């Protein structure tokens, strides 16, 4: 059995960590799959899917680390007009933060429930907002 849900999320800032744990947990519980895997996948190249502890201080440290690794002011090659896009992105830090954080995560589904550690929260991490974003949750199992 394969079940899919699409979350549409409107971010509100250029950098934002948006918890989506409950949406995932709820879909897994309602979708009818008892045992299997749940994949959470972003549809974008300037967002991330992260699992971490849902504390504001941890979020701050993640944001500051990513800013140190991919600062706004750097001579990025991507800073030019893109004819295939018809626009100037100038958003290389957003792409690099997305690469660092990763685009997806997996959870075990057991007895119709999402299995996760007590400290684990799932985030859609916005690196190029504010924008409307899509996250796919696909549950595969029986």
């Amino acid at each position, binding site marked *: 059995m394969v079940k899919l849900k699409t979350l549409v999320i*409107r971010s*509100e*800032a*250029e950098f934002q960590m948006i918890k989506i744990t409950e949406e995932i947990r709820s879909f897994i519980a309602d979708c009818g799959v008892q045992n299997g895997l749940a994949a959470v996948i972003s549809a974008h190249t300037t967002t991330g899917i992260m699992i971490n502890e849902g504390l504001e201080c941890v979020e701050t440290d993640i944001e500051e680390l990513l800013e140190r690794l991919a600062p706004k*002011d750097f001579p*990025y090659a991507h*800073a*030019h*007009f893109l004819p*295939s*896009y*018809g*626009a*100037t992105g*100038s958003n290389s830090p957003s792409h690099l933060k997305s690469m660092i954080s990763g685009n997806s995560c997996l959870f075990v589904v057991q007895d119709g429930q999402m299995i996760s550690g007590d400290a684990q929260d799932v985030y859609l991490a916005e690196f190029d*907002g*504010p*924008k*409307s974003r899509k996250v796919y949750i696909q549950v595969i199992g029986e």
Partner: protein
Amino acid sequence: MIIDVHTHPIFYKAISEDTEILKYRKEQFGIFKQSPSPLESVLQEMDYNGIDRSILLPLDLTTQSGGWIVTNEDVKHIVDLAPERFIGFASVDPHRSDAAEILEYAFRDLGLQGLKLNPSKQKFYPQDDILKPIYELCLQYNRPILFHAGMSWEPDAPAKYSHPLNFEEVAIAYPDLRMCLAHFGWPWVHETVMLLLKYPNVFTDTSLLHMDNALDFYKQVFKTNMGPLWIERNLNDKVMFGTNSPRFKAKRLLPALKAMDFRPKTLGKILGGNAQVFLGERGNERPWLN
């Protein structure tokens, strides 16, 4: 107060239901890999950037490619959805035989507040006689014109029509007609500066990000190609904040503009005060310029 004088509502969901029209818009404007956004997202992005109002620009290409990138009615529709946030401009293809009627309808009945013309995409020279009835209507209704000037990224849009010097005779013939030569007329920045300096009715906007990132490009154009104090000393009444969204984004241009070390008063004029003069909402504080 911040006014973005240069916004193309190409991907506003409220006017993007028809996929064929959206395809035409993308091809004619030369923009891809983006999809329609609901009005809530548009307003949220404006709020995030501190933009109070945006001027929405249509474009009539009836005789060139048989359609409009965005119609005057589309603009009116969006303005009606959030009248406190949007200022609607009209467009008209100067080559169409009913150009004057289309424009008068847009000003009188749709209540649109200015005119957008793109000499490169619409293929006309600004000083051509066919423009006379259009300019006279703008004067009659006290409406400004935002002209595309300089290089255009749109396909089939030769830059020769939009060279800044083409606008000089218009500025001379119609001294009361407020006009914006968008994009600083890039790459003819010095020619644009000459017109800004000489003609009180000529304005420009900051919607240029043709190379580099916004900070590097603004430094290059405003501080190196131009003397570093030219805007501050000579053109502080003539430059308006504009993005050319969705091609260039406010979240890139605004921080770069704020990093140019303008005096707070000058920055305030660029971000909104000069747009109010351009729109006719208030007079120029420096009457010797009028």
